[in-house]
């Protein structure tokens, strides 16, 4: 088979274009990697500030892992645990999964929750994000203090007119977080204690 010059030109042209495109995107990745990580840290920091009780540590830096879940512990200035937060995913949102950052007090009740990611219908299901009054329904509630279902299913939590699926998914996911804390209570506290020791030796300053 004879390869003519046109074919070689085509191959070279595409090769050069691909190499340059790869170089440009690669360089951009190098330049944006740190800002992207910083932006994500900042977003998580903001959310953690909202769901955790008042704390003086860097909850993000103090993160621990229990059963594959990354947990952000909040501590006061005496290095005592005041709360915990982690993200749970509700896979059964109306359109795709909803991620919720759940902040718990040490007694296992909810301190606050925030929606960190969702694709719910604007103006309908996305009320869960904007409607802080509804999110406040969870504050102070433990596993036994409420029936963890929406009212339509015989529970204690309101659904919205025309949007039952979103609140149902959120209630279920937050309940899952409470159960996780209940089930792994000892393991979580143990891990926090373990993490405390090296924490004290390093300079424990607020990085933010």
């Amino acid at each position, binding site marked *: 088979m004879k390869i003519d010059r046109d074919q070689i030109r085509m191959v070279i*042209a*595409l090769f050069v274009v691909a190499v340059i495109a790869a170089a*440009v995107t690669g360089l951009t990745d190098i330049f944006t990697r740190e800002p*992207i990580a910083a932006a994500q840290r900042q*977003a998580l920091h903001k959310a953690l500030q909202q769901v955790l009780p008042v704390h003086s540590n860097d909850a993000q830096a103090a993160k621990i892992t229990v059963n594959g879940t990354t947990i952000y512990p909040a501590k006061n200035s005496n290095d005592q645990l005041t709360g915990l937060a982690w993200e749970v995913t509700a896979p059964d949102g109306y359109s795709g999964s909803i991620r919720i950052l759940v902040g718990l007090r040490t007694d296992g009740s909810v301190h606050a929750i925030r929606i960190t990611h969702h694709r719910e219908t604007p*103006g309908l299901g996305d009320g869960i994000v904007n409607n802080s009054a509804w999110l406040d329904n969870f504050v102070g509630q433990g596993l036994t203090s409420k029936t963890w279902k929406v009212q339509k299913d015989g529970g204690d939590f309101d659904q919205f007119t025309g949007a039952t699926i979103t609140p149902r998914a959120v209630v279920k996911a937050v309940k899952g977080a409470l159960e996780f804390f209940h089930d792994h209570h000892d393991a979580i506290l143990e891990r926090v204690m373990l993490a405390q020791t090296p924490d004290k030796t390093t300079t424990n300053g607020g990085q933010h």
Partner: protein
Amino acid sequence: MNKSEIFADGFWHNNTVFAQLLGMCPLLGVTTSAENGFWMGAATILVLIGSNLVVSLVRGVIPKNVRIPAYITIIAAFVTVVEMAMNAWMHEMYLVLGLFIPLIVVNCAILGRAEAFASKNSVIDSLVDALAIGTGFTFALLLLGGVRELLGQGELFGFSVFGASYPDVLMFILPPGAFIALGFILAGINIFNAQMQRRSDERTRVANAALAALAAEVAAVEVSS
């Protein structure tokens, strides 16, 4: 064509949305508010300028047979750069626009400009064209986003316009509202264009009508014979 003609053509007469009806996916997908529409448009302008510039620079160098994969690679590289930059420095808007940013790659309007304009014109003209097409597309996104936000939530750029008592017309936020609003906007623009047309060449219109009548007569004669 001189520069201002290129701009007028790209922005209005050949507008991506109003004339070509291209780029419908981002247009209908992200325009739930004026702000979303604006930033989607801004991202598209950046990609268009980059791709038109590079495609115009390499015109004549890329063999004809492989120009489409080459253009797509160039466009994809620019989209990736814009996506990473937005993720880094406009994180919240990046989360809102999400999937629609990478989808700029398959916005046929961009490949269309590379193929139909930048590959045949000078660098400067291609940049003017990119700016015209990009701002025209942004204008369309902004208009549709503004209309939907206004009717759907009574707000514009997040500021209340009709007051708190405005009953949200949910339909305009939902996908069907995008189609309905776009339909009315297109109808309005067609009326506007038609009026401009009528005013500018009334005489040609009369002549054309006479010509059409003549053609119909000829056709009728042909059919009867």
